[in-house]
């Protein structure tokens, strides 16, 4: 049956309408999913669910935008999840409530929230800078370079995490200001907007401008599309790769701090495997591993699709193990449809 579908798909692009449908297949997947969920459980349509899904997608959008920029420049980043974990652990350790009994730094004064977040962004920015350095200078395949970094960062995080006075205890008792920073919301007369959604929106707009309106954006697309051509036309590839990795690192650092505040605690396992979710969302959202293709809207949609799956399928009571199967199928189907249009291009 699948072969006949793909047979038919070859003819599909001939007509403009169908081409449009194919190019936006991912939106139809999202709409289709929503229809199924709503038809099973009509009470899914509520402001509260809508808000929950957006809030839950927020940190993931931030991570996906970071790794998405790297993917556009024909790279990838497997160290994302572990860097998020490092950011979560460091920010949590520096922002524990002053009256909490098991503080990692018993004598640490109460810091302004922004300070630990900046520290964390510098730390993850540094690790990501090294990623970029290894990839651009030593020409190590990004998959391998960041795989190594993933393991290194986990080691660094575990050393930081598992030490006196309390050893490998989850870091809890977070400063209420810090948890409110992520869990709070603006109340517009009963219409609540979570802070998380606001942060994610600002970052999305920022990234959209960066991708579409700046030299940086043009150059990362050029590098991803055809590196040799980019070099010939005078793009400083090393510089832009360093920039794109470091930028991703900043986003992991900020998002990782939010993750700690949102969860209310952090361990050295926080963020584990987030890279796969983020990369899958990017690819489902239309980015290509061969670089040079993609849009911010696609990434956001990709993240939302996975969030709708996770939230909606739990909401209508789909067996948790079955959810893995659906998630896997969505990745394969979405990318299979998507790759048809790239084949056509070549």
């Amino acid at each position, binding site marked *: *049956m699948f072969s*006949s*579908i793909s047979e*038919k*798909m070859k*003819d*599909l692009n001939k007509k403009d309408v*169908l081409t449009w*449908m*194919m190019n936006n*297949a991912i939106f*139809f*997947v999202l709409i*289709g*999913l929503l*229809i*199924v*969920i709503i*038809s*099973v459980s009509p*009470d899914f349509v*509520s402001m*509260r*669910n809508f808000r*929950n899904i957006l*809030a*839950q997608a927020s940190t993931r959008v931030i991570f996906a935008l970071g790794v998405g920029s790297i993917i556009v420049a024909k790279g990838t980043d497997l160290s994302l999840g572990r860097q998020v974990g490092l950011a979560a652990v460091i920010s949590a350790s520096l922002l524990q409530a002053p009256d909490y009994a098991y503080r990692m730094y018993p004598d640490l004064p109460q810091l302004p929230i922004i300070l630990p977040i900046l520290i964390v962004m510098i730390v993850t920015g540094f690790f990501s800078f090294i990623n970029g350095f290894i990839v651009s200078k030593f020409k190590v395949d990004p998959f391998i370079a960041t795989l190594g970094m993933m393991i290194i960062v986990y080691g660094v995080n575990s050393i930081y995490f598992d030490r006196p006075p309390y*050893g*490998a*205890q*989850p*870091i*809890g*008792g977070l400063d209420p200001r810090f*948890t409110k920073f992520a*869990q709070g919301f603006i109340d517009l007369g009963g219409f609540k907007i979570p802070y998380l959604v606001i942060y994610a929106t600002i970052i999305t707009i920022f990234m959209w401008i960066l991708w579409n309106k700046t030299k940086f954006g043009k150059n990362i697309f050029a590098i991803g599309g055809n590196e040799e051509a980019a070099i010939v036309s005078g793009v400083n590839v090393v510089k832009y790769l360093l920039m794109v990795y470091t930028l991703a690192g900043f986003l992991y650092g900020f998002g990782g701090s939010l993750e700690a505040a*949102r*969860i*209310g*605690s952090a*361990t050295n396992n*926080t963020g*584990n495997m987030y890279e796969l979710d983020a990369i899958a969302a990017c690819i489902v959202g239309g980015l290509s591993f061969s670089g040079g293709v993609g849009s911010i809207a696609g990434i956001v949609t990709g993240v939302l699709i996975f969030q709708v799956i*996770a*939230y909606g*399928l*739990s*909401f*209508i*009571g*789909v*067996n*948790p*193990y*079955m959810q893995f*199967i*659906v998630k896997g*199928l969505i990745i394969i*189907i979405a990318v299979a*449809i998507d790759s048809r249009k790239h084949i056509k291009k070549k």
Partner: protein
Amino acid sequence: MKKVLALLLAFSLVFSLAACSSKTETSSGSDSELPKIGVTIYKFDDNFMSFVRRAIETKAQGKAELILNDSQNNQATQNEQVDMMIAKGVKALAINLVDPQAAPTIISKAKQADLPVIFFNKEPSEEAMASYDKVWYVGTTSSESGVIQGKLIADAWKEHPEWDKNGDGKIQYVLLKGEPGHPDAEARTKYSVETVVAEGIEVEQLELQTGMWDTVKGKELMDAWLSKHGDAIEFVIANNDAMALGALQSLKANGYFEGDKFMPVVGVDAIPDALEQIKDGLMVGTVLNDAKNQGGATFDLAFNVANGKDPLAGTEWKLDDKKAVRVPYIAITQDNIEVAEEAYK
């Protein structure tokens, strides 16, 4: 147009999968009369928790509509599931935390929705428990598994004077410890030996090493100890059954359990494999962490509070001063093995 249909067909494959499977979910169907109770399990494929989950499902049959969630060992996932369940209008939450430190976040979510919460199996801090009047806990006292194991050792020892091979009246023991720093490992190690001493039996520790809860490590350590101490070892105490089974393997390979060559081995957990060994008379005993009653008590409390009743109404459970129901551990030997087997049905 045909092509569009083909495309839609591909999608519908996925969607129908999702839709169909939703019917197989949750034990008691979607009868809107029944109160909804939201349950999260820290990890569905955890051996012990899967039995607790089954006990909850069995008890809920026909009484409540369960919304079961697999938190996939990720606290962020669990928080999101709690948001989802609150949006779905559950009457009570039963939460098996991934990370006990995250309890305040869950409690604040429940507070905002004015929902009662029953935590189970992973205990929140005292402050967290005190921060909300509609929160209770179902679990065990971790020191108790050690105490029960100690009793089991003392009773067996008194019954079998022939185990005192050198006749000095002392137990020369080796101890396989779980992961260092793990509260269960520390408590079991401390209390099992202390209880034996409290029973008036003198002990001498020949070896104490961590086997990291692992069968292979347990076997390797036992190999080393047997070649070092040989028959001087009179008792093998393990913090869990997996390590006890490893020690058993090593003992078998070294000619024990043939003829009258015997070595008493005890563990904790009552995993099915260990029960087999107890039945065959190779292992002396183990300690059952009672999944059936933990799940049962969790459901009883959640069901009561979901209906706005006192959490203990109509049950035999008792709360301690930390608003907790403590389900007792049970010592398992050849004499009462059916109790443990019952727990796995």
